[in-house]
């Protein structure tokens, strides 16, 4: 199957490029004088091979792998445009502001089919002159892209991989992480448990590698906030959350929580295979948190404070569905480029690449505070919402957790603990 390449003409649907504005497009560009007036940038989607990038336009690439369509009815099916829809909205937001700063943005999307090579797609985008790349892929592929594009002046935004190693031993200078690390997610939950004085955790760990990593992050968080893992068991009963409702209840799954002393069950099931099976099926009546039940996230349909209601409405109008965490993360990545360009008055990658990690750069992103990237590992500092399926429960950092720099640094790996060393 060929790789789909969409050169989304989003900027243009807004009609941003009317006569009168064009002259000023040349502000940070090498646009030849002959083109400087009266001519709007092309509005047609280009064929995949066309490499030309208009110098006054900022192209942002996005590589993602759409979820395969669900085989039968699935109320919670992942939408095909998950993530990329958020990037599209941010391109519109960037362009709206760009009308006043004379900057234009376009999104170059590559949806990978099946096992299509992510590195080849990234090289293709970089070869066309793209210097900002949003990557919604697992850690392995992200690293491969980062290493393949090393030294080419491309800034990569990781919007999907929460792996702590990407912020630690495997950190890369050309990668910025919008998605919170597992350490940040589990610290957020641990702070909330501390606030609630729930001290004893029963940790249930799924069979996949990511589940093991989540459990590991949670154990670290428990140590950090002085919580006790009073019991730990692997989940060995298969993807029961995906089983049909008329499947006979597995008796061993019903009783494996028997005889344990704990305040709350913590499930580590990043794939969402069985975590939702646990609530209301524990022998003792106990709440469930972790990857299901009460979760730590960047976004949720019930988030409406700090202007989030506006983003929710704008997104729903654009995409005809609710905004999901990956949509928000891709939005924040594209907005990082737009916001940095507004602040520096140029979209020049040579100026912006070092600016993202500058403490002077901050991104307003519907969280009540400005978000900044940690200079030591390029992780976006951010409040994390603690939320149950139908309501916001809390926002971490919780009151009372303080830090000499910012309370946001009570979440995730702090400077003294970091193992990230950026190679020159």
């Amino acid at each position, binding site marked *: 199957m060929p790789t789909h390449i969409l050169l989304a003409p989003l900027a243009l649907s807004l009609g941003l490029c009317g006569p009168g504005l064009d002259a000023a497009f040349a502000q940070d560009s090498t646009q030849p004088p002959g083109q400087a007036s009266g001519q709007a940038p092309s509005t047609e989607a280009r064929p995949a091979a066309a490499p030309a990038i208009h110098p006054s336009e900022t192209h942002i690439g996005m590589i993602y792998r759409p979820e395969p369509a669900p085989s039968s009815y699935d109320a919670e099916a992942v939408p095909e445009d998950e993530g990329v829809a958020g990037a599209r909205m941010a391109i519109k937001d960037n362009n709206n*502001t760009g009308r006043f700063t004379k900057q234009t943005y376009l999104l170059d999307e590559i949806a990978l089919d099946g096992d299509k090579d992510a590195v080849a797609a990234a090289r293709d985008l970089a070869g066309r002159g793209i210097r900002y790349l949003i990557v919604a892929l697992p850690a392995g592929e992200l690293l491969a892209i980062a290493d393949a594009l090393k030294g080419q002046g491309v800034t990569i935004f990781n919007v999907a991989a929460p792996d702590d190693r990407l912020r630690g031993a495997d950190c890369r200078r050309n990668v910025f992480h919008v998605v919170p690390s597992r350490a940040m997610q589990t610290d957020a939950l641990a702070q909330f448990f501390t606030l609630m004085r729930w001290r004893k955790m029963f940790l249930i760990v799924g069979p996949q590698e990511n589940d093991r990593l989540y459990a590991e992050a949670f154990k670290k968080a428990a140590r950090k906030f002085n919580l006790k893992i009073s019991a730990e068991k692997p989940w060995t009963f298969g993807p029961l959350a995906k089983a049909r409702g008329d499947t006979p209840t597995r008796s061993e799954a019903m009783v494996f929580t028997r005889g344990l002393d704990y305040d709350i069950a913590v499930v580590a099931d990043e794939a969402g295979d069985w975590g939702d099976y646990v609530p209301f099926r524990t022998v003792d009546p106990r709440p469930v948190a972790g990857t299901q039940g009460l979760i730590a996230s960047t976004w949720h349909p019930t988030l409406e404070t700090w*202007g989030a209601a*506006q983003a929710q409405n704008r997104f729903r*109008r654009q995409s005809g569905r609710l905004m999901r965490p990956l949509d928000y993360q891709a939005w924040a990545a594209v907005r990082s480029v737009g916001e940095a360009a*507004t602040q520096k008055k140029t979209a020049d990658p040579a100026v912006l690449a070092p600016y993202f990690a500058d403490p002077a750069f901050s991104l307003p992103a519907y969280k009540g505070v400005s978000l900044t990237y940690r200079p030591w590992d390029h992780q976006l500092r951010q409040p994390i919402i603690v939320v149950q399926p139908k309501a916001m429960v809390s926002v971490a950092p919780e009151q009372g957790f303080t830090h000499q720099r910012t309370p946001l640094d009570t979440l995730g790996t702090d400077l003294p603990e970091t193992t990230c060393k950026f190679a020159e």
Partner: protein
Amino acid sequence: MNRGFRAGASGTMPGLAKQGLAMLGLAMLAGTALTGATPAQAYTVYVTNEKGNSVSVIDSESMAVTATWKVGRRPRGVTTSKDGKELFVCASDDDRIDVLDTSTGKVVRSLRSGPDPEQFILGPQGNLLYVANEDDSQVTVIDVEKNKVMAEVPVGVEPEGMGLSPDGKILVNTSETTNMAHFIDTTTFAVIDNVLVDARPRFAEFTADGKLLWVSAEVGGTISVIDVAARRVIKKITFKIPSVNDEAIQPVGIRITKDGTKAFVALGPANRIAVIDAKTYAVEKYLPVGQRVWQLAFTPDQKLLFSTNGSSNDISVVDVAAEKVIKSIPVGLLPWGVAVSPN
């Protein structure tokens, strides 16, 4: 002139206002007897309750809620007509502006505001209303008498704050996600300049002489003071409150006294109003008010200032001269905007 008495003299006073008059009269007598001073004039204070879909009506002298009026969904921005006979309310979720008769509390008509009206400001002639359409990145100009859209001006993402120069010639809109103050010529309805301010600008307020514009930045935590002629930020005011996280200091509403000496800034979840020397820009005091304080409004005589406290569902009343909070009054769910009758 006392509003109650004038209503009485005109002989058109409905029952509700009569009741108000009776209460008011008693309160005035009591006030006079106690203090022996000239009583403050009684005004009517209108508070929009964003989640209550209502307007709380408060008498400024008795400081009690006298009525609660039903309006459209998600009411936010609110202002009165120049004569005080009509109240304009942004019904954001109904994409319209409700116009209420202040003598009956009934919605008498609705204006075509464009989508998601959030804040607005009435022109000096009283017939043009400038509306920020938050979800639609534009400012809509409406003739309120003809209910006609005169212009739609494209601005940045999530337009909110609306300020008008005292001569009515320059309109300023702030866009919350673009982070700019857009200067709009009110004769041509064209954007003539854009000034970059700090993150999430919520409110724009001109000084009475029209020379300076103050813009709050909710996430940036600052006030930018802009030289209107040069269209340049000449001062950034910052805030520091012991025992309050810097992140919780989120400036929103701004009001500056007519004599240009004093400014009040609502600081959101810091639950305080900052009192600022408007000449030196020194922050002199923080007044503790209710939770998540957003919008502010003076009485026309500028003796009192009211603040909407969204999370505690109340408003605080500030004695402007004494710089003291003298009362808090429970209102509806999630109070957002506040306006005071001109008489």
